[in-house]
């Protein structure tokens, strides 16, 4: 049967318990099929992949321009992470564009955002692939060199948030860090 060729006719439709289970399974698969499109239109958290091609050197220049125009201070690393160094603290205009670079091994610059405002956060990498991972919210997005990954994002909670890197990017990977402050 399971190991011998079938010579007698074997083709017939489902019946009984297997038919009931098929019905349940199909119904559940249908419900799941509706969830993603539903959330795409009515849900608040989506990953649409909005992106543009960019040269790393151009993205760096644009980020430095953003830092120069909007800098409000310096974030001093408390000191337990030797790879971090100090970061410029930058506040983008409410409802405006913010630029964030992932590079070995920091997220540059540190950002200060306002609660309830919507920003277009541009993410890109200068060298390798990086993983933007915002803690403790645990929001995760992939960041590639050559791509400007745009997140239209609205902070709805206040506090100090740390950006961890969760895509392997060399020996300093687990210490790669960044900051977002929401006030």
């Amino acid at each position, binding site marked *: 049967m399971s190991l011998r060729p079938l010579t007698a*006719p074997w*083709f017939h439709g489902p019946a009984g318990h297997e038919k009931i289970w098929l019905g349940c399974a199909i119904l559940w698969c249908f419900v799941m099929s509706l969830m993603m499109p539903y959330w795409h239109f009515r849900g608040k958290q989506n990953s649409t992949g909005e992106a*543009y*091609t960019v040269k790393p050197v*151009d*993205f760096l220049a*644009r980020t430095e321009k953003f830092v120069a125009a909007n800098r409000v201070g310096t974030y001093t690393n408390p000191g337990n992470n030797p790879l971090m160094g100090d970061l410029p603290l930058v506040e983008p205009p409410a409802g405006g564009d913010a630029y964030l670079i992932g590079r070995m091994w920091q997220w540059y610059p540190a950002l200060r955002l306002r609660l309830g405002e919507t920003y277009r956060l*541009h993410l890109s990498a200068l060298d390798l692939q990086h993983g933007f991972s915002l803690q403790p919210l645990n929001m995760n997005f992939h960041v590639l060199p050559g*791509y*400007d990954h745009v997140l239209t994002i609205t902070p709805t909670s206040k506090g100090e948030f740390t950006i961890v890197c969760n895509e392997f990017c060399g020996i300093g990977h687990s210490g790669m860090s960044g900051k977002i402050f929401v006030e």
Partner: protein
Amino acid sequence: MKNEPDKHPWQKVLDNPWLLLVLGVLIPVLSYTVWGWIELLLTKPALLP
């Protein structure tokens, strides 16, 4: 040699490994690979105003 009764059309599909091979290559390659590749190729350059 064999006196085969009429097979259900779906059984003919199930009994045809070559058809399954062709479909099994074509459908994922078109839906995942080719479509995804086109999406990447159509990515516009950044404005960076």
